[in-house]
C-alpha cells in the first residue's frame, strides 16, 4: 500500500462567488512566511527503527496518545495516519523486516480526539475499496466528534493483490482507479453539502460513471463543512487534480530546487481552477535529526540510517530494484553485476518506483563513485529528505525552505514510536517561534483555521445559488 497519484479530474468551472478571505493568523510580526507542521505516526515503513530500546508499541493506544499530545504541545496543524489494506509480501511471503500491523485509522483518530483539543486528525483512507456514502459518513462523524479537526488523505489502491480482501475484488486498472477516486471525492462533497444551512436534510442523487446513489445523508453539516482533503502525487495529472480539489498536498520532494520547481508548478495551476495560492498547502514528508551540534546530529543520523537499513533490509531493497532473489548475496559485498528483471512480482503491496534498469544503474553509479558496499549503497539510495543538525540549524533550514517557496510546511516522519517528536517539539519549535515563523498559540478551533483555509460551510453552494 503506498500513496498513489490521483488524476486530473475534469471539473466544471468553479462557482462565481468569490471566496471569503481565510481568517488571519495572528503571527508575531516577522519576515518569515508562516510554516505548517504535521506529524506522521511511525509505522509500516522502513523509517521506523523498531530495534531501538526506546521503541515502544506500534499498536497500543498509549503510543498514539503520547505522539499526538507531543504534536499538540508543539502546536502542530495535524496528526497523520497512513493506511494498509493488506500485509505487504516479498518473494511471495509476508514481509517481516519492518513494522507489521496497525490499527484502523478513523477509529484511532476518534479516540485521539478525546485526548487532544486542537490537533487536526488526518486519516489515509483508500477510495478504491470503500463506498462514498459510508466513508463520507465516517469522515463527517469524525469532524463532528472532534469539533472540526478531521482530514482525509485520499489514496487509491494498487491492484488485485489488495482486492483479495474485498467484495470489490479484482483489478481496477490505473486510469479507472483514478477516475473512481475523483468521482469519489466529488460525491463525498455532494453528501457533505446535502443538508440545507438551516439543518434539514435534502435528498441527494448522484448518477455518475462509478457511483449511482441517492437518498438522504444522515448527518448535518459538520463543523468544517468539509473535512480537509489531502492528496499525494507528482504526475501532471496528480498535480492538476490536487490543484483543482485538494487542500493539502503530501509530497516527497527532496532538494530545495526540486521543491521550488514543484511548488511553483502546482501553485501556478490554481488560478485555472478559480483558486488562490493560499487555498492549497504543500507539505513534503521529511525526517529530522536534532543534535547538540551539527556534527553530533550528523553522527546520529548516520547511525539511524544504519539501523533503518539492516543487512536484511539492504538485501531486500536491492531485491526490489533487481526484481529477483538475492539471498545468496553478502550485504557487505558488491552489487549484483547482472541486469534487473523488469517484469517482476517480487514485490507485492508496494509500488516499484521507476524503471528498474535506470534505478540499478543509479545504484551502480553510487557504489562506484564512493566505493560502497551493497548495504552502504542501499543506505545512500533509499533515504528521504532530512533536516539534520543542531536545533538552530534545523530551524533555520526549515524556515529557509518555506521562505524560498519550496514548501508551506512539513509532515514529520519520526523514526521512533512514541518519543520520536519529543526533541523536535522541545528544541526546534521554540526557535521557529522566536523567528516568528511559527504560531505561538492555536488561533482557531478547527484544522481549517490552523491551515488558513476557508470553511466551505461559509460558502454559498451552487445549489443554494440556484434556489
Amino acid at each position: 500500500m503506498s500513496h498513489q497519484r490521483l488524476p486530473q479530474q475534469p471539473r466544471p468551472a468553479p462557482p462565481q462567488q468569490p471566496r471569503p478571505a481565510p481568517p488571519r493568523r495572528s503571527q508575531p510580526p516577522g519576515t518569515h512566511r508562516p510554516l505548517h507542521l504535521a506529524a506522521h505516526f511511525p509505522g509500516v515503513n522502513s523509517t521506523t527503527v523498531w530495534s531501538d530500546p526506546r521503541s515502544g508499541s506500534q499498536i497500543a493506544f498509549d503510543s498514539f496518545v503520547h505522539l499526538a499530545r507531543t504534536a499538540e504541545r508543539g502546536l502542530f496543524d495535524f496528526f497523520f495516519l497512513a493506511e494498509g489494506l493488506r500485509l505487504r509480501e516479498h518473494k511471495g511471503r509476508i514481509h517481516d523486516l519492518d513494522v507489521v500491523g496497525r490499527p484502523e485509522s478513523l477509529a484511532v483518530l476518534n479516540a485521539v480526539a478525546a485526548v487532544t483539543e486542537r490537533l487536526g486528525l488526518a486519516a489515509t483512507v483508500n477510495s478504491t475499496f470503500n463506498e462514498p456514502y459510508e466513508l463520507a459518513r465516517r469522515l463527517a462523524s469524525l469532524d463532528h466528534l472532534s469539533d472540526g479537526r478531521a482530514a482525509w488523505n485520499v489514496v487509491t489502491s494498487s491492484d488485485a493483490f489488495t482486492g483479495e480482501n474485498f467484495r470489490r475484488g479484482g483489478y481496477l486498472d490505473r486510469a479507472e482507479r483514478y477516475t473512481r477516486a475523483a468521482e469519489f471525492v466529488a460525491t463525498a462533497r455532494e453528501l457533505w453539502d446535502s443538508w440545507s444551512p438551516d439543518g434539514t436534510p435534502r435528498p441527494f442523487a448522484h448518477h455518475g460513471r462509478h457511483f449511482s446513489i441517492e437518498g438522504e445523508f444522515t448527518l448535518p453539516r459538520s463543523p468544517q463543512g468539509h473535512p480537509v482533503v489531502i492528496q499525494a502525487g507528482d504526475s501532471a495529472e496528480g498535480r492538476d487534480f490536487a490543484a483543482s480539489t485538494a487542500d493539502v498536498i503530501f509530497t516527497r520532494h527532496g532538494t530545495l530546487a526540486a521543491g521550488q520547481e514543484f511548488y511553483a508548478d502546482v501553485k501556478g495551476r490554481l488560478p485555472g481552477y478559480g483558486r488562490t495560492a493560499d487555498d492549497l498547502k504543500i507539505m513534503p514528508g521529511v525526517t529530522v535529526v536534532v543534535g547538540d551540534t551539527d556534527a553530533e546530529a550528523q553522527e546520529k543520523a548516520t547511525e539511524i540510517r544504519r539501523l533503518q537499513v539492516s543487512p536484511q533490509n539492504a538485501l531486500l531493497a536491492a531485491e526490489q530494484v533487481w526484481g529477483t532473489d538475492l539471498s545468496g548475496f553478502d550485504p557487505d559485498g558488491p552489487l549484483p553485476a547482472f541486469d534487473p528483471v523488469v517484469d517482476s512480482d517480487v514485490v507485492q503491496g508496494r509500488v516499484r518506483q521507476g524503471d528498474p534498469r535506470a534505478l540499478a544503474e543509479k545504484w551502480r553509479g553510487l557504489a562506484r563513485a564512493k566505493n560502497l558496499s551493497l548495504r552502504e549503497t542501499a543506505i545512500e539510495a533509499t533515504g528521504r529528505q532530512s533536516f539534520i543538525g543542531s536545533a538552530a540549524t534545523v530551524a533555520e533550514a526549515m524556515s529557509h525552505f518555506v521562505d524560498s517557496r519550496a514548501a508551506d510546511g512539513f509532515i514529520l516522519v519520526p523514526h521512533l514510536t512514541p518519543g520520536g517528536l519529543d526533541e523536535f517539539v522541545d528544541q526546534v519549535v521554540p526557535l521557529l517561534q522566536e523567528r516568528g515563523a511559527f504560531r505561538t498559540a492555536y488561533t482557531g478551533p478547527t484544522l481549517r483555521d490552523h491551515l488558513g483555509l476557508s470553511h466551505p460551510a461559509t460558502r454559498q453552494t451552487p445549489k443554494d445559488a440556484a434556489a
Partner: protein
Amino acid sequence: MPDSTPTPPAPQTPPAVSSTPPAPSTSPVVSSTAPAPTPPIASSTPPAPTSPVPPTPRRLHLAAAIDVPGATRVADFLPLARFADEGLLDFLTLGDSFAAPGLDALSVLARLAPETRRVGLVPTVTTTHTEPFHVQAQLATLDWVSRGRAGWRPGVSTSENEARLFGRRAAVTAREAWREAGEVVEAARLLWDSWEDDAEIRDIPSGRFVDRDKLHYADYAGTTFSVRGPSIVPRPPQGHPVIVADADDPVRRDFAVRHADVLLVETSSREQAAAFSAEVRAEAARAGREPADLRVLASLTVELSGGEQAAEPGHGGGGPRPTAHGPHYRGGPVDLAELIGDWYAAGAVDGFHLRPAEPGRDLERLVNGTAALLQHRGVFRAFHPGSTLREHLGLARPANLHLTASAT
C-alpha cells in the same frame, strides 16, 4: 489464557478442538430447564477480586442503551457513558443505521473510550453494505483503543432505501441478510485469529519484526464475499470482541444462537424469559456451542419515575407491559430492582439490557436508584473485578483457532 470458547468453524478449516480441558462452567444455568439455585439476595459480600477469567459464581449482568436520536455532539453522549461507567454496568450499546439520522456508532464509542474506564462499548455495526475486512479492523481497533472493552452488535440493512445509498446491490431479505451477517462474523473471527498473540517478536539478530509463521491467511469464501487476510490489525486484547445479538424473531435467533456471546431477548414475563433462555441455550447446544458460554439478557425499555412508588397499574403488577416496540417498564427504580432481582434469582435470565425511554433522566435513575439498590443487596457487583468486557461477563478469552488446530 487458553480456554474452550468455540469459534464457529469456517467452511474450509477443520473444527477448532481445544487443547486444554474445558474451563469450569461459569454459570450454574447450563440447561436452564430447572431454575438455578437462588443466590443469596441479602449477602453483602462483593465477589472477591480474582484472576482474569475465574470460575466465577453466577453474576448479574446489567447493560444499557445510550441512544439519543439524531444527536451529533459528544456532549449528547458523554454524560450517559459516564453514568454507565460509574454505575458499573457491564456494557453500553449504541445503535446505528445508514438510514436514520445520527453519527457512525463505532466512531462515537471510540471517541468515548478514553473518557470511560471499565464499561464495555458495544456499537451496532451493519454488515450488508460494508466490507467485512474493514468491519473487523474497526472492531479490533475499538478493542485496542478501549483496552479490551469492545463488543459488536451486528446489524443488517434490508430496505431499498439503504440499498440505494450504496447502489451496489438490490435490497436483500432479512433471511439472506442475516445469513450473510453470520458469514461476516465467521470471517471476522478468522481475521482476528489471523495474528497469533505473540506474532510480534522484534528479533534483532535476524532483523525480523514478526514471526511470519504466526501470521495466517483467513481464506474465507462466503456466498457474497471472500477475504484473503491476514488482518492488518494485530489480534485484539480480548482475542475477539464480544458479540451481542438480538434473539427475538426466528431469523435473528438463528444468527444469535450460532454466533453471539450475549443474547438479548424481549419478553414481558419471568416465565416467558425462563422458557426463552432454555430454548436459546438448547438451540445453541444443537449448533455445537457450549450453553454455559452464552449470556442471556432481557431487553426492555424503562421509563423511571422519580420516587420509589410502585409500578403504575396496567404494567403487569410491576412487570413490563408488552408493546409494539417491545416490553416497556414504567415505574419506580426500586420496583425495577425488585423485578430484576426476582427474574435473576429465578434463573430466568443472566441479566438485563435496559433501554432508557428518556436517556438523560432514566439512566441517572437506573444507576443511582436501581443499580445502587441491587449493589446494596449484594445482587449486583460493587466494583468491576476485571478490566475487559469479557471479564465483566465471565467469558473466557477465545483461544486462537490456529493454536487449537495445531495442537490436535
